[in-house]
């Protein structure tokens, strides 16, 4: 565990040194800040817009950060040749991947917390105390971002950076479209295609599961049971991605 933590803290510190984090953070804060321009609307509509824009910003910029942090995690070490030093020490490849994942999760958390604090501050400045539903939605967005990061890290262990960027963004879009795919599968009468469709739907990360913000912004309450099930879904998917990452990294010739 100690070795994992060493890799994790190094990954975290390294990510802090990169300008990407700060640029994304500033752009995200500006994006959320612009929602103040909706003050010409009725108070209720303005609050709804602030919430909509903020949730979308936290998810979108969080996804970009998760993807770029994970992409550089493996290839960066190989390019700088630091991986030889790391792996020659008593650090297993499993520890290396686990450490990278924990490190990137911390940086995603830091980013999400900072943007969320700004968002909550904005709500409070509008005299709207954020209710528990807001935090539920933020929690699910964070689990979704961890999923995105873990999948990108898994792909980074065997694919090139260019492929990984395209693949991860493609998966981010497809993962948000699973509802449409489900409707197609439900309408299919051919049992073989239906089975195949269900299988594909299980394999693809279903980011739509984590989207409760459309309901939360209009004051609808989401049960803890749903939050629990979705979080568990995310954790299982993350475990799968990390295991696949370990598998391919063990096989990789460095």
């Amino acid at each position, binding site marked *: 565990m100690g070795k994992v933590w060493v890799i994790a803290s190094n990954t975290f510190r390294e990510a802090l040194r990169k300008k990407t984090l700060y640029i994304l953070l500033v752009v995200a804060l500006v994006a959320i800040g612009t929602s103040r321009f909706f003050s010409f*609307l009725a108070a209720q509509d303005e609050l709804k817009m602030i919430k*909509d824009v903020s949730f979308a910003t936290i998810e979108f910029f969080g996804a970009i950060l998760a993807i770029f942090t994970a992409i550089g995690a493996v290839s960066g070490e190989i390019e700088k040749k630091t991986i030889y030093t790391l792996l020659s020490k008593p650090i297993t490849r499993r520890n290396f991947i686990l450490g990278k994942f924990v490190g990137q999760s911390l940086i995603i958390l830091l980013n999400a917390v900072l943007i969320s604090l700004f968002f909550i501050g904005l709500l409070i400045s509008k005299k709207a105390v954020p209710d528990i539903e807001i935090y539920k939605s933020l929690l699910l967005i964070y689990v979704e971002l961890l999923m995105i990061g873990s999948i990108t890290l898994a792909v980074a262990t065997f694919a090139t950076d260019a492929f990984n960027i395209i693949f991860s963004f493609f998966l981010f879009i497809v993962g948000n479209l699973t509802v*449409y795919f489900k409707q197609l599968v439900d309408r299919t009468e051919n049992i073989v295609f239906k089975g195949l469709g269900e299988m594909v739907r*299980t*394999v693809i990360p279903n980011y739509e*599961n984590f989207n409760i913000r*459309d309901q939360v912004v209009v004051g*609808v309450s*989401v049960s803890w049971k749903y939050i629990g099930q979705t979080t568990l879904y995310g954790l299982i998917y993350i475990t799968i991605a990390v295991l696949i990452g370990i*598998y391919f990294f063990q096989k990789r010739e460095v």
Partner: protein
Amino acid sequence: MKNKNWVNLFIAILLYIPMGFLQVNIDYRRKLEDLEARLLLMPGQVAGSLVLGGFRGVAADLLWLNIEDLWHHGHTHKLLPLFESVAWLQPRYITVWAVGGWHMAYNIYATLEDEKEKKYWYEQGVSFLKKGIAYNPEQYDLYFELGWTYYNKGEDYSNAVKYLEKAVKFPAPDYVKSLLAHAYENNEQVDEAVQQWTKVLDTGFKPIAQRALISLKTDGAFTPKRRTRLGLDKET
């Protein structure tokens, strides 16, 4: 080491089984808690691409800003597909149903001369509000909006009573309770009106309720419209 590595892949594949079951449960709960997203095929432009990216809330907001803009420029008829789209994207967003129904039954109605056309838009407003109720049956808001539209615009008091009775079953502001009393009276349910005003005595509308009860007990009428109808007051 090599054999152990296969265990990682094996466990990963095995984990897809509980995840598949979990997804079935999540699908069920999304249906149960009305969290499912709806397919939007119109109108395209900015909203369409955002919907594909999973940002339905922002798409609905952009359409709402469009509605505001069109409304202030007097393009009332162009608002209708936009109302439908926002309602489709976020059906639990009560404001869109309430404002949409109001635009149809009041604002578009007011711009028309032909009685048939007026009737058509009044009915469109009523039908839009009813659709909104189907998506939001557990809040007073749209029952009240519909009850008010029937009461005030349609002067259809029996339907007004029907929906206002539903509205007061949920936590609602005092004016909803007092409107129900007015609706009862106009629907010739004077006993129910008295009972309702008695309930209103416990609210912030107490002075009005007191006057209403005295008036109903002495003249048998309180609301100006009914008093005029009964010849108790002259039409103003």
